[in-house]
């Protein structure tokens, strides 16, 4: 399969870097071809702290068309935004906080406000040209969707259809079993893939793989809201998540172990208890404490170990003479059947 890799937050960005590093030989100041990654994967880094994004030199600014790139989640919100003011005055949350609060419930809270406050949704709808929740909408439309096969869909949903689509998801979830939902749109995905290859755009991603620390400030909160946005457009698009459980003790930002463990539990609960077919398709967990002990605190080596563990599922080489063996819809089907 060729997933769009989405690294979220600091840990997600560090692991993602391993995947997006060029596999080509490096020449000083010269690049003769396209950026070549393992399995030809593409991806982006989502970060909420602009300073962290500027303090590194691997990712460029995706908003300026650079690849591999980072996207600051709240860049679409102006400092004088009415929506921002409303949330700040009524709930005390800042939509442009530089690096979200380390408490996992912070970002969860931010998204839930948009779910239940109709006034806020109307305000955002007016300010952001039809987007009821500007954060995931910006990430999905500006960052992730252009890298996926969904971007070439001929029948993109307009915002006016979104509510209908939402209802469809709920109704479908009730009527169909999870497996049926998983299988329902695979035909259309394969067709889309065929159209994609025919149109010479075969480098677009056929799935999404989120990478985030479970228990941090940014990574934990973004996966579900973005997944909701994907599901509005394509029910069966394969979405996987690679979650990193944090190690014991306090981290570099002084978040306590208990605080992060609670964050991880909340994140896993949210990710794994969605209605069938509406959330992610699989969650892959890695325990950073085990890696920490094995690599004696060498964080780059730990990131490399995670890269090597995930690499086989990104391998583009299929069994000879056969078709469609390791593509994302097939992998999703296997997971659902298991």
């Amino acid at each position, binding site marked *: 399969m060729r997933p769009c890799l989405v690294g979220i937050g600091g840990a997600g960005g560090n692991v993602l870097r391993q995947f997006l590093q060029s596999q080509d*030989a490096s020449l000083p100041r010269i690049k003769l*071809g396209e950026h070549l990654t393992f399995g030809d994967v593409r991806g982006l880094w989502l970060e909420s702290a602009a300073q962290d994004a500027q303090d590194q030199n691997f990712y460029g600014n995706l908003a300026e068309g650079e690849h591999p790139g980072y996207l600051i989640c709240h860049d679409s919100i102006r400092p004088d935004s009415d929506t921002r003011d409303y949330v700040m005055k009524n709930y005390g949350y800042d939509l442009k906080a530089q690096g979200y609060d380390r408490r996992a419930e912070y970002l969860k809270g931010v998204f839930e406000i948009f779910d239940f406050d109709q006034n806020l949704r109307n305000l955002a709808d007016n300010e952001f040209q039809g987007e009821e929740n500007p954060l995931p909408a910006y990430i999905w439309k500006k960052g992730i969707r252009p890298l996926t096969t969904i971007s070439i869909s001929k029948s993109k949903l307009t915002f006016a259809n979104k509510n209908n689509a939402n209802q469809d998801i709920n109704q479908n979830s009730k009527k169909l079993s999870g497996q049926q939902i998983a299988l329902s749109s695979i035909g259309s995905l394969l067709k889309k893939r065929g159209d994609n290859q025919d149109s010479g755009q075969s480098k677009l991603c056929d799935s999404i793989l989120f990478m985030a620390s479970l228990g941090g400030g940014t990574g934990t909160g973004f996966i579900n809201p973005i997944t909701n946005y994907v599901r509005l457009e394509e029910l069966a698009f394969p979405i996987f998540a690679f979650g990193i459980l944090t190690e014991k003790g306090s981290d570099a930002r002084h978040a306590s172990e208990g605080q992060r463990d609670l964050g991880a539990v909340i994140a896993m609960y949210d990710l794994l208890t969605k209605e069938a077919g509406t959330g992610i398709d699989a969650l892959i967990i890695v325990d950073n404490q085990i890696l920490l002990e094995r690599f004696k605190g060498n964080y780059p080596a730990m990131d490399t170990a995670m890269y090597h563990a995930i690499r086989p599922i990104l391998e583009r080489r299929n069994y000879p*003479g056969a078709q469609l063996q390791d593509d994302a819809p097939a992998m999703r089907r296997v997971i659902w059947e298991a």
Partner: protein
Amino acid sequence: MKYEITLLIALAIIMLAGFLTHTAYLQRIKDKLSKTSDAAFKMEDLKQSLKIPQGSNYNTLVISSWSLFFVALAFLYFLTPRVFPAWNFFDFPKVASDELGLLIFAIAIVLVTAVVSFIIPRGYGFYTFSRVLKNITIYGVPLLLLISIISSSYLATIFPLTSDIAWNLGFVALAAALIMLLAPIFSGFLEVIR
């Protein structure tokens, strides 16, 4: 048999070993895969499935390196009458006395061996090897071949005098470059027989 010709045969054996290793690598993978499934497939299918891109930088540099390898080989053996008195650059006095004579000779070799230089690197597409090895190859091989070419040019300059040290240095650099060029094949084979 002349010492230099023995060494030329040694180079040919290294190249042949590279080719045989490549063939054994593909056969080994075919045998291993055949045991995992009843689905039959041809070697052509396997080659198609194994093919992966190595990157434009690497491909460009490795094609250039193979071209440069043949130039260095020709310079070492055919620039002076030391090894083949009847077949050498000095048999063409008009070109040999031209100030761009060496360049003309090199371009002629590049043109003659162009097809081979393009075909051999296509084999690298069947192997997965590290970026470190790629970088070592694209920087190390041209450097070694440059040493070989400079040594050969020095021998041409001092002719009819000769220097065993210069010739041996040219050969060692050439042989080392060849081994480096074939390293992905050897390392791939070692991986597959583990």
